[in-house]
Structure formats: C-alpha cells, structure tokens
C-alpha cells in the first residue's frame, strides 16, 4: 500500500515519527550523497531530486498555538499537496531520537485557503527545500538546502530565493503507523545514523537549543 494512503487510513490513531537531524557542509554534500546512494541501493526513486515548498500556519487563538504546515512539490505538478501536523516532542530527554506524533495527509490545492479562511489559521512563514531524498527499508533520508520563497510581483509563483545557510539539512526519519510502537523504529533510525556518522552528526531535535 502506498505509504500516504496508509497514513490516511490510520488517521484515528496518531502515527509516531522517529527522526534525527543534522547538517552537512556544501563541500561535503557530494560525499554524503555518494554514501547514501551506496547505502540505499539503486531502487527507483532513490536519490531523486526534490524541490518542495513549505508553508507554516499557526492557530493562535488557543494556547499553545497549533502549528501545521502544507507542502507541495515544485517539480511535479501531479502530486497532491500535503498537510502535515507534528505533535510536540514526546520522547524523554534521555532518548536519543526525536519522537513525535505526525499526521500527514494528501490534500487538494485548496488546503491553504481552507486553513486560512475556513479554519482561521494564520500563515507564519514559508520556505523552499531543494535536495535529494532516499529511502532504505522504512527509513527515509532527505538532504536538502533551505531557501527563502520570495514571490514575484503578482504573488502567484514561487521560486527558490536565497539559501538560509551554506549547509544542507539532513533528516533521517521513519514513521511507525497507527501507534504501533512494538517495532523498534527508533533503532532503524539510530542504526542508519551510525553509518553516516563520519560525515554528518545526526542528533535529536531539541527545541530548547534553538536560539530564542
């Protein structure tokens, strides 16, 4: 079954995402991509470029505000928009992997309007991520650069603007469907991160470490 469909059918029970984050300098990104190609094999879709436009929305009438985001591909017009909700960090501080609830659903192009006009969400910021994605078993790896998303005069089209940093953001994640926590999903992620250790140091995402 297509993972996205699977997510849709399991909506009643929140899925758990296990993820690790890191970054790699531009000069080393080729090494990393080469390593990933070796590790993930040559299955179709591995190492494919992606260019996604993310828009983050928040609903500030409750405390804490609800934050959701939409994502769409700028390369492929046929794939639907995605609606994504990430819960707050669930893992204890002694766990080595970020564990969060995740809702990831396919939507029509109307989702931004619906969020803003129908539900009263406010758009916070948007960005574009350009890079390459890989998959190894159930672990998904994305290596990408974050760009601003300036709009042209009419505001209708979005192009990648300036990069936020010279480094590429690396994300290694897997999703345990329907709250199925028996499977050691975090081990998959840790194991994969070990194999990339010499190039990129992958850590759990700690909101407290973000600059205020």
């Amino acid at each position, binding site marked *: 079954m297509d993972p996205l469909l699977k997510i849709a059918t399991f909506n009643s029970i929140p899925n758990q995402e296990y993820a690790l*984050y890191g*970054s790699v300098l531009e000069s080393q990104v080729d090494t990393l991509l080469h390593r990933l190609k070796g590790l993930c094999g040559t299955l179709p879709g591995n190492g494919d470029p992606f260019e996604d436009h993310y828009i*983050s929305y928040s609903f500030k009438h409750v405390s804490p505000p609800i934050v959701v985001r939409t994502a769409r591909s700028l390369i492929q017009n046929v794939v639907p928009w995605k609606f994504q909700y990430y819960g707050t960090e669930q893992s204890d501080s002694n766990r080595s992997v970020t564990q969060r609830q995740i809702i990831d659903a396919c939507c029509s192009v109307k989702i931004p309007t619906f969020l803003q006009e129908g539900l*009263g969400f406010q758009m916070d910021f948007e960005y574009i991520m350009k890079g390459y994605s890989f998959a190894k078993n159930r672990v998904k790896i994305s290596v990408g650069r974050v760009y601003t998303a*300036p*709009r042209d005069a009419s505001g209708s089209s979005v192009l990648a603007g*300036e990069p*936020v940093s010279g480094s590429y953001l690396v994300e290694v994640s897997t999703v345990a469907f329907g709250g199925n926590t028996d499977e050691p999903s975090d081990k998959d992620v840790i194991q994969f991160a070990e194999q990339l250790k010499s190039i990129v140091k992958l850590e759990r995402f700690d909101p407290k470490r*973000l*600059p205020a």
Partner: protein
Amino acid sequence: MQRPAVPAAALTTGPGGIASNGPGGTNLRPPADPGIELLLSSISNIKANISALLQYIETQPDSLSWPAILDRFNVIMSQIVVLSSQMKNDRLPDLRKLTVVPFLVSPDPDSTVERITEGRMATVNHENVPNYLRTKLDPEVENRFEAAYLRIPLPNTPAETLQKQDKQIQNLNKVVNTLIEQFQTAQNDWDSKTAKAKLPPTSDPNDTILLLAAVTAGKNFPSQMQHGGPKFPGFPQGNSGPQIGAPR
C-alpha cells in the same frame, strides 16, 4: 609416531555385520541412512563452494574483489557451521557407535578407493590406515596430556606448593596486566595521532541549529519574510470571505 597397523583387514560397519567382501575388501557399505545422506550433501556443497572459490581466484585474478571473496568465505563458513550442527543433531545415528575395522591392507594401488576419494588416497596400506582409522590421540600427545593432568595438585597438596602456585599466578597476572597497559597506551597514542591528522570538518553544528530554527520556527531567513496572504497557481480565488489573520 605410528601405531602398528592391523594386518588382517576388513571393514565392518554398524553393530555387527561385515561391510564389504569386494575384491579389495575396501568398499565401504554405502550409507543408507537419510541423516548421513544429509551430511554427504552438505559436505559436497561445501566442497563445491571451495572449489568454486579457488576457481574464481585462479581464473579471474583481474576481477578479484575483496568483498566478493569475503562473501564466498562467509557462505562456506556458514555451511560449515550448519554441518557441525547437523553432526551434533540427536536425530543423526550416533556415528561413534559405528565400528570400522580394516580387513585387508595392501600396498597395491586400489582403483576403487582412488575413485571414491577423488584421487586423494590411492592405496589402503599400512602407512595411512592407522592415520585414517585413528580414534585416539597420538600416543605421544596422549602421554603429554596425561602428564599434564597428573600435575594438577590433588586436594592434599602441601601448603608450600600451593603458595608457590599462587605466587606464580600473581606473577603471571602482573606480566599480563603490564602488557595490557602497554597495548592500551600504544592504542591511545595511535588514536591521538590519527585524531591530530584530523579530517576537514564535514558539518557545522551551528548550521544544524540555524536550519532547524528556520524550518520549525521561520527564523534566520535572510530578508523578506512575507506575511501577506499567498496566492497559488490553480487556486480558487475570489469566492470566499475575508481571510482571517492573513489579509490579502
């Protein structure tokens, strides 16, 4: 060191029963047991794999690759492990109960034996029979084992001897510990040396934080952050009320 060969020869297998009375007296009774068949098949598998590996090494020396050889070694090793677990299997007939007695030992070449052993053994003679049918250790080795066992102190060993032994054990421990220390210092030296010749940095932890702040909180974007209501291609426009919190 050879023990005297048995001059008369016959091969018997199993509890009673003469294995063979062929012309040379050297035919083994073909093993009919399925367990032995299993062993035979796994042995021939291993043999096939080893010869395939040798052939690979000899015929394609240019395309040799270490991972490929390791792969093949691994296959062979796992087959050997399987074989030894099969040998230990309870369902196998106890091969230790199988008796093999040489009936006839002759210095003349025997073509049957040569065929069975694939050319490794041409004759059943006085030289190799003791080696192949040996069930005990070489007498010399056996004697040394016995001598070693005898040296183990009996419960009523005098205290003086025990003290001596303790001392020796302590001395040995000391030597071993010093050796371990030396190895560890050598290893540390090596580690620090390799660490000094450090590789160029591949990642910047500050960048990680910066990027994560950008994608999770919208911080650190270089310039224009828009808060205007976005319009999207293919977006239904103008059919809805005022946007909340995001004025067009």
